[in-house]
């Protein structure tokens, strides 16, 4: 009797304890779930580098779908080949790799042709422009198919990252939409700048009921991005587009929150054509990769962020690399070019802009607002950056061959993705630049 009372009292006292003790089955389940959680936590947030990479891969994952979407014939343009490099580390090749290629490298080889096509097994690391990523993903995949040994990791973190990474020597090559101003040097000396693709920047908009090809000129575009033109039926836009039924939707201009090559091109175009309203607002006539007007509209990260926002938001207009606009089937504005005609971005109109580039070089790279009636005004070459002196001969030879392939055979892949093949004079500029590659002793790698 008394014992029973005591037990009851004890039960009462320790009530919450027993409540919290789970049944064996439940606790086993809880334990295993907790283990999963632990693993997830460890994978998800172990290193800042991983976290940063994750940030980049927000675009990577979406962007790498480009090849599979646009090409139905070669649907296997494996995204896996170029994506998941962690922030590239300084390359240390295996000794085996160094010896296996001496046949080609020691005697100096011919660039792009005879010298045995079998490259040593190497991993090449690069970082840079986000805009070129769809193109690189595809050409590096095909190069890997042709030369099984060479795989390329490309981290599309942005042009400025490409420049700083090559300057600090943390990657084998960088890529930037804007070449490094002379003198282009880094920790390992002189940097060669090779034009590798020709792309354009689309002004894409989401305006239900209005087709593509809405005509815009410099001052109107400046007004939109400065926030002075607020609705789509503004008289300035209506005057350029007689006969188009413009809705009164509010305009939401979208810019890149990070710095970007497309932003640089549009800034250059608006400096050339946008009038004093633009130059006085941004205070200067030097184009910048960082979008100058940050107090108007919405800022999104990378091409994918801007493209995603345009897709979601009626009334939005923003600038994206044409390859991204093409992939998303956006409606693009027809921009007024230097000759006074309105041109939409397309493979041919961007190619026309590239064809105007006479005397192109890393210091004379600007092809924005070029001459010619069929020329699309927002176009640019993308530049790959490599050190002239390659301390590792094997790697130097592989890089040279890879880039020569990209600028010649690889250009066949450009059109389907929304880029335009390099004009012949630019291909030869690339070839001449690559012939400048040297080994550590200063002897040319190729002849």
């Amino acid at each position, binding site marked *: 009797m008394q014992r029973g009372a005591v037990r009851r009292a004890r039960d*009462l*006292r*320790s*009530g*919450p304890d027993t*409540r*919290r003790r*789970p*049944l064996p089955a*439940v*606790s086993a*389940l*809880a334990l295993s*779930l*907790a283990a*999963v*959680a*632990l693993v*997830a*936590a460890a994978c*998800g*947030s172990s290193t800042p580098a991983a*976290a940063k990479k*994750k*940030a980049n891969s*927000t675009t990577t994952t979406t962007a790498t779908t480009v090849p599979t979407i646009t090409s139905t014939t070669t649907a296997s343009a494996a995204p896996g080949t170029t994506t998941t490099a962690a922030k590239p580390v300084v390359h240390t090749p295996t000794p085996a790799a160094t010896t296996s290629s001496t046949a080609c490298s020691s005697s100096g080889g011919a660039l792009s042709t005879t010298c045995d096509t079998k490259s040593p097994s190497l991993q090449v690391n690069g970082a840079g422009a986000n805009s070129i990523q769809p193109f690189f993903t595809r050409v590096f995949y095909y190069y890997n198919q042709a030369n099984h040994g060479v795989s390329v990791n490309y981290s599309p*973190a*942005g042009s*400025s*990252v490409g420049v700083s990474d090559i300057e600090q020597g943390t990657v084998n090559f960088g890529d930037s939409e804007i070449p490094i101003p002379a003198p282009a040097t880094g920790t390992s000396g002189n940097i060669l700048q090779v034009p590798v693709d020709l792309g354009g920047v689309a002004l894409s908009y989401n305006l239900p009921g209005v087709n593509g090809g809405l005509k815009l000129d410099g001052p109107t575009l400046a007004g939109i991005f400065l926030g002075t033109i607020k609705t789509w039926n503004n008289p300035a836009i209506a005057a350029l587009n007689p006969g188009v039924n413009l809705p009164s939707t*509010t305009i*939401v201009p979208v810019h890149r*929150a*990070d*710095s970007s090559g497309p932003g640089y091109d549009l800034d250059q175009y608006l400096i050339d054509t946008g009038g004093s309203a633009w130059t006085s607002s*941004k*205070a*200067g006539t*030097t184009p*910048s*990769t*960082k979008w*100058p007007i*940050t*107090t*108007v*509209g*919405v*800022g*999104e*990260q990378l091409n994918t*962020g801007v493209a*995603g*926002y345009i897709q*979601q*938001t009626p009334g939005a207009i923003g600038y994206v690399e044409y390859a991204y606009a093409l992939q998303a089937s956006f409606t693009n504005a027809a921009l007024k070019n230097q000759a006074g005609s309105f041109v939409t971005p397309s493979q041919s109109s961007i190619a026309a802009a590239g064809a105007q580039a006479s005397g192109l070089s890393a210091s004379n790279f600007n092809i924005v607002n070029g001459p010619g009636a069929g020329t699309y005004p927002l176009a640019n070459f993308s530049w790959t950056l490599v050190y002239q002196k390659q301390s590792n001969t094997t790697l130097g030879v592989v890089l040279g061959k890879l880039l020569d392939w990209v600028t010649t055979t690889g250009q066949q892949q450009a059109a389907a993705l929304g880029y335009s093949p390099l004009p012949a004079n630019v291909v030869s500029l690339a070839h001449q630049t690559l012939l400048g590659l040297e080994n550590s002793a200063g002897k040319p790698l190729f002849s």
Partner: protein
Amino acid sequence: MAPTLLEEVPPPRLTPVGGVKEALQRRSARPGGRAYTVVRWSGAVLFAAIVVALVVSLLASSSQAFAHSGLSFFWSGTYNAAKDIYPTGVFILGTLITTAVAIILAVPIGVGTAAFLSEFAPRWLATPLSVAIDLIAAVPSIVVGLWGLLVLQPIFTRHVEPFMKKIPVLEWFFHGPALGPSMFLAGTVLAVMILPTIVALSRTSMSAVAVEDREAARALGATRWQVVTTAVVPGARTGIEAAVTLGIGRAMGETIAVAMVIGNNYALPHSLLSPGATLGSAIINNFGEASPGLDRASVIGLVVVLLVLSALVNVGGQLLMRARSRVVGATT
């Protein structure tokens, strides 16, 4: 029997922890203890050194920015690297607003959920639910950010934000066009991120409230709900406060998830629906491309401001709580 046992196992010497020298002397007889002392002290010193080095190096690398901008580092104009103008006021404001939104959303829901789990939910539901909540805490912020961007943003633009505009008092905070990315959306995403922390810590401290307190409340005729409000929540207050402090810390420091949903507009926000920017999002957007020199120094200056702001909010919050508990103690 007992004496032999005592001889075999000498009782542990319970000596107070002193300085390094004393500890070494005390432990000198036993090499293992000595090694442990060295490890223990060097660990403590290393930790302190890392914190000091962090602050010093941040200050050193940002001193150029503070020298250049002076007090105008906190206001005047729009952040523009091309013009060498680096005001942080908008970012500070954005950080405080998004954090406030997150706390306002997450604290009632979090504490309520914790109370439900610890007091009301049957055991078969409470255990798996707690595990699920702990799992949310392990989701990396980039995932939450993507979810906010791809899932929440369209819902907010079409349904939630127009709805908020119709609510009589709240409409004052929610005016202007619903563009999608906004301070409000960023605050909501932050609330989701800090919710598991608040729930887990509050639940633990609520479970730890003494049974006698609940029994006392019940004995006075309290309903189940009144037991929670009069006995459990006050008893667990310290734990709940710690949970909120941790939540504030995470919300203020979050970068990538916020940068994805806030709209990165550097203008002064006029409504919770405006796109904006926080210190964290500005750091992540500007640091990668900041050119060495004043530009980079200014971005590191943002980091210093964030550090100071977090410290201020934490200290301020603690002082507030201490003052409040004193008032409560005096009145009851």
